[in-house]
């Protein structure tokens, strides 16, 4: 199954226009984030007080769009919005991918052991998954960020906290997949030949979970990006001056009437990122197994 999965997925994915579009935009975003210092000579921290009026409103049309500032500037400080959004992509993608990794690790550990061991552990793990699934996650994220030790960098805290509430969907899918795999002939044969449980889990089950985990991991990235943006929007996520789309959108709340571009620029970036990863994830899932189409959660 491991050998054939990519061979099955690729042609189907390439035939899906929406997924290809999503993948393209996502790839562009990743490249732009990686090459941020090359794409703009201005950094997102330098003030440009000449670009804003005495009351802090950006001078010129569209929030100060011009040769110096391609997408305008931040009100009050005159920092370059293009640089902020570009460097914000780094934060978003870093947290998005980092939190997804945390969620996948927990999800696979919980789901695979539950599906493999069965019994009381399965009952406990599944029930816990269900409960965390229905949680008011955002409120718990805020509470946990509030009490996190100040020594740990905030960015790491955001990654951990966001990832910690993202694992239930992974655990569910992995558990179901593990139960199916457990009854497959090659697993039964391995057990019959005397393989220890951890060997079976490690050598036979986990490698076969890989395609599923990759697909559902990709589908998790946009929600993780969204969660970071939401926390930062509320002012409890990534602290200034680290650029973050969510925080800029949050700052834009009080400027929405005077300088709508300040909202629209980071908003478009966030929307593009979530949409592209969503389309790619949906496409991957459909390509992996068309029957999963509506099994999104």
């Amino acid at each position, binding site marked *: 199954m491991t050998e054939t999965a990519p061979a099955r997925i690729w042609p189907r994915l390439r035939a899906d226009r929406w997924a290809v579009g999503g993948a393209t935009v996502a790839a562009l975003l990743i490249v732009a984030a990686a090459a941020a210092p090359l794409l703009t000579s201005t950094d997102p921290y330098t003030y440009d007080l000449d670009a804003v009026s005495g009351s802090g409103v950006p001078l010129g049309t569209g929030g100060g769009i011009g040769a110096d500032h391609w997408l305008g500037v931040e009100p009050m400080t005159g920092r370059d919005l293009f640089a902020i959004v570009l460097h914000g992509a780094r934060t978003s993608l870093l947290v998005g991918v980092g939190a997804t990794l945390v969620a996948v690790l927990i999800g696979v550990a919980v789901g695979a052991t539950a599906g493999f061991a069965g019994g009381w552990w399965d009952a406990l793990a599944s029930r816990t998954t269900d409960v965390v699934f229905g949680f*008011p996650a*955002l409120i718990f994220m805020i*509470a946990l960020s509030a009490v996190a030790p100040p020594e740990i960098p905030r960015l790491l805290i955001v990654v951990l906290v966001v990832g910690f509430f993202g694992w239930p969907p992974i655990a569910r899918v992995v558990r179901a997949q593990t139960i199916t795999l457990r009854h497959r002939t090659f697993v039964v044969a391995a057990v019959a030949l005397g393989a220890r449980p951890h060997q079976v889990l490690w050598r036979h089950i986990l490698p076969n979970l890989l395609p599923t985990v990759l697909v559902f991991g990709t589908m998790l990235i*946009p929600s993780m990006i969204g969660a970071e*943006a939401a926390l930062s929007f*509320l002012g409890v996520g990534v602290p200034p001056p680290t650029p973050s789309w969510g925080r800029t959108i949050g700052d834009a709340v009080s400027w929405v009437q005077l300088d709508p571009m300040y*909202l*629209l620029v980071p908003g478009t970036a966030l929307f593009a990122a*979530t949409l592209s990863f969503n389309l790619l994830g949906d496409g991957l899932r459909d390509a992996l197994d068309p029957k999963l189409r509506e099994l999104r*959660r």
Partner: protein
Amino acid sequence: MTRVSKRLGGMILVLLIVSFLTYVVLIAAPADPALMSCGRPCTPDRLADARAFMGYDEPLIAQYVSFLTGIFTGRTFGSTAAAVECAAPCLGYSFRLGAPVTELIADRAPVTFSLAIGAAVLWLVLGVAAGTISAVKRGTLLDRAAMTLSVAAVSAPAYLVGLIGLLIFGFTLDMVPVSGYVPLTESPIDWAWHLILPWLVLALISAAVYARLTRTQLLDVLGEDFVRTARAKGLREGVVLRRHGLRNTLVPIVTYFGLDLGSLLGGAVLTERVFSMPGLGSLLIDAFGNADLPVIIGITLFSTAMIVAANAAVDLLHGVLDPRVTHVQKGIFS
């Protein structure tokens, strides 16, 4: 009856476990509320006094037990003349704001509930309606437009849509109020008028998901044999759709709804910030800024209790909608 009582038992068990874990994790954290309120200069003696006054000098388990009993019997902080009374149901006392947490929550909860309940109604109605139309008119331009729009809506954060809505309908067209909250008891019309945009914003995003869900489920059901039989009997299409189609899509929709209540509350917190509404969300954010631990714990546990209770209700509704559920399915919080 046994189903209901089993459900309640499961609910209480989950609440106990979650509240214990939450309490221990949050209270054991390095942020020390006593240190914040001990004043300057904070001598070790005064700090110890403050800790004793707030009840933080006890072992964790004892603190949790006094917290729990406080919910039922109320509790008193400190024993001197400066003692603070916290009447039952006591969810703690904010020394920062000088008020019982229960009172603070009771003050703000109506805002959040008005927002969340109204949005949930709107989201179910809009979602099911759009999904039904899409399913009936499947393959047409309308169907494809609705489904494409729903993919986009799923990816748009509620607060972003809210801000753009605010920009268009609030500031530019000047059609709706741009911020604030008017209590229902004061003026129902103003209440709804201030909430209309927040409701729409919060509802639209989730309605998109429900439109897709309804469409798929309905198409599934409409392909079943009993629907063909109903049509063969000569029932009108509208009746087939309502009695046989929609009736059978309700259960999965209610299931998803139960799972989404948590994100509804999260969405309400974000929407409150956009429209500057004084709800639980802003109380929590302020508490975050002030490291006001009792308030943070109180809101976290209160919202969990609300979600668990709402889930139990949704789950019982399941049994009403589909008698088979009683035997087959277990609720997510039972």
